[in-house]
């Protein structure tokens, strides 16, 4: 019974939170410069690199950044290797800014255009 309650609560959380963040994020002005500051100050760079490129500790976040709704739902509720960030740690404004920063990171060259990555 206790387990069932937990599952229901988690399902509601996962379903409802993205919606609430969508509503919130539509009311805030996202700023990529502020987002870059938030990215550094909240340790995102630690696993994902300063350019969101990812590595052995975390997946790439940019380019081709996931939609904000997905981003919000994952960051708030993850139970994987990445720890969740609550609203107390990262506000809705921070989240919107972070997402704007990641979206602003330009796509780099494809590996086929980099001679050092085309050695036999």
């Amino acid at each position, binding site marked *: 019974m206790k387990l069932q309650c937990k599952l229901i609560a988690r399902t509601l959380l996962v379903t409802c939170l993205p919606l609430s963040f969508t509503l919130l994020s539509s009311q805030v002005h996202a700023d990529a410069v502020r987002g870059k500051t938030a990215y550094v100050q909240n340790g995102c760079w*630690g696993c994902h*690199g300063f350019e969101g490129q990812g590595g*052995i500790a975390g997946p790439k976040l940019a380019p081709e950044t996931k939609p904000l709704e997905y981003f919000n739902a994952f960051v708030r509720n993850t139970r994987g290797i990445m*720890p969740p960030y609550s609203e107390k740690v990262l506000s809705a404004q921070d989240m919107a800014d972070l997402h704007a920063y990641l979206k602003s990171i330009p796509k780099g*060259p494809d*590996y086929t255009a980099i001679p*050092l*990555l085309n050695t036999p």
Partner: protein
Amino acid sequence: MKQPKEKQPTGNQLQTGRRQFLGGVVAGGAAGLAAMHTANAAEPKPSAPSATRPSAARVAAETAVPADLGKAGPGMPGSDFMLDVIKSLDIKYIPSNAASSFRALHESIIDYGGNSKPEFLNCLHEESAVAMAHGYFKITGKPLLTLCHGTVGLQHASMAIYNAWCDRVPVIVVGGNDLDAAYRPPGVPTFHSAQDINAMVRDYTKWDDTPVSLQHFSQSFVRAYKIAMTPPYGPVAISLDANLQMAPVHMHEGKMPTIPRLVMTSPPQGDSGAVQEAAKLLLQADQPIIVADRAARTPAGIALLVELAELLQARVIDQGGRMNFPKTHYLSTPPSAIGSADVILGLELSDFWGTVNAFTDNNLNDGHGSQSSRIKSQTKLISINSVDLNTKANYQDFQRFQVVDVQMAADAQATLPALIEAVRKAMTPERKALISSRTSALQKVHMEDRVRTRTAAALGWDASPISTARLCMETFDAIKHLDWSLVASEGNVSNWPNRLWPVEKHYHWLGRSGGYGVGYGAPASVGAALANRDLGRFSVSIQSDGDLMYAPGVLWTAAKHKIPLLSVMHNNRGYHQEVMHLQRLANFRNRKVNLGGDMGPVGTSIERPDIEYHKLAESMGWWAKGPIKEPAQLRAALKEAVEVVKSGQPALLNVWTQPR
């Protein structure tokens, strides 16, 4: 049968000898000081000296070689005989930090032995000395000996000994000790003495002893060498009594103490029934996967693993404890492939549980995290592991307990020929055809993985600080035309060298520290570079910042002994693993982590002030440049550094990098 006993000098003889020696030093020093005082003094009438000038006979007695010393045979110093024992085992170097408790052997090495085979290498920390021996072995397959003070020196050395233990590397550690409490010098030498110095490292050495006679020493030393060099390899410790080094050699029943002949012990091979069972399971499998950690002890081990993998068309996950399998081979596969296996053959795995299970540090289960299987429930597991023969209780390097279906307590490399033979014998023509049909699909998978890896490496390619993929590939481009050896890669550069470099030979990749004790990278690189220098190879290391600062004095040792090494720094300005741990913990507790003005949480950053590693290296005799923060600056600096290293000098580039 009664054992011959060596005749030892009496305590009084020793005491008298030592007092006479100390008295001579005091008298000589006082006489010298008095003479200086007289030469510089303005007074016409010098004051009477506090000690009388020694007579010619006294000077001769203090300085001349005693009649019964300086020759091989009865009366030679005990430490000269010890050196003969060491020489008999063809030990080439003795990286050590000088200490009075082994002064007699030290003197014998440089004066009786001519400081050649073994050559004393001047180390500034015992941890560096042991780690140098660790790195040296991984290139040559031959152990080195390191001398250290019995207590304080052994305590310094202990972290590196633990790394060698976990990495299954033989190092012969000899600790000086003044055992006889009635005659040992008071004060510092007594602080540095212990009843049983080896006790502190007994949990992570294969064997140790405290010889009490020279014959005992020679037998124990040869035994220690054999034990260290029998798989599973491991460090051994010998306590070296100061009196035994000092006292002259005496005859045993008319004979000199002897040096036992070295006959190496064969490595343990898997039981024939278990080998056949393993072959049967592997042949029946549709998706066999071989996982190797420290399987290839020698280049022959790599060839055997390739033969088995091709015979079965089994993919190979190389966990990187050693260079087990060529990364360019189409059967080389990333760890993520494990989930598809129906039979897994684990070869010398340090952690079988961790190979087939996942642990997620996600704060679930009251903070314990969650665990799950990474493999299918019906997957059969086979283990060949020599470490099963050498498990101790205290330190947990044997890892979590994993039930397997066939377990051989045996050396993997020694067992592979029998396993290959068993697979060949049991192979039917139908099975052979079926296995051959897998090849093209596996080649395709390998090519797809290669594209994925390179696509990932291109991300952040032009970033500043420099991406770890860029760092590694610029470095490789600068050395690819040479007979290169990556002697260490510390600080986690997302494993790019193993993912992108054509790692094919045993000296292309040497594995890691074993015990994950930070501070291994710099000294192990120098030790491996020493071995490569003698073999004419070019050594390169990816050197992390935190690792270098544990005992940076090894840079001086490299310059002093002209050990060429290109050290390219992965300077991410912090203990990055801890950066991530602190962030995780703060998030779990719903708190904003305190950065204290740094990049990472308080206590994890190495910045403000930024350490100027290039200046540190320069101060110790290295050619160095930095800090290099822009990727465009890297190529020219690497080109210059490579030329310096080719000329025989060590060179360091301080490169600011992305975290991982």
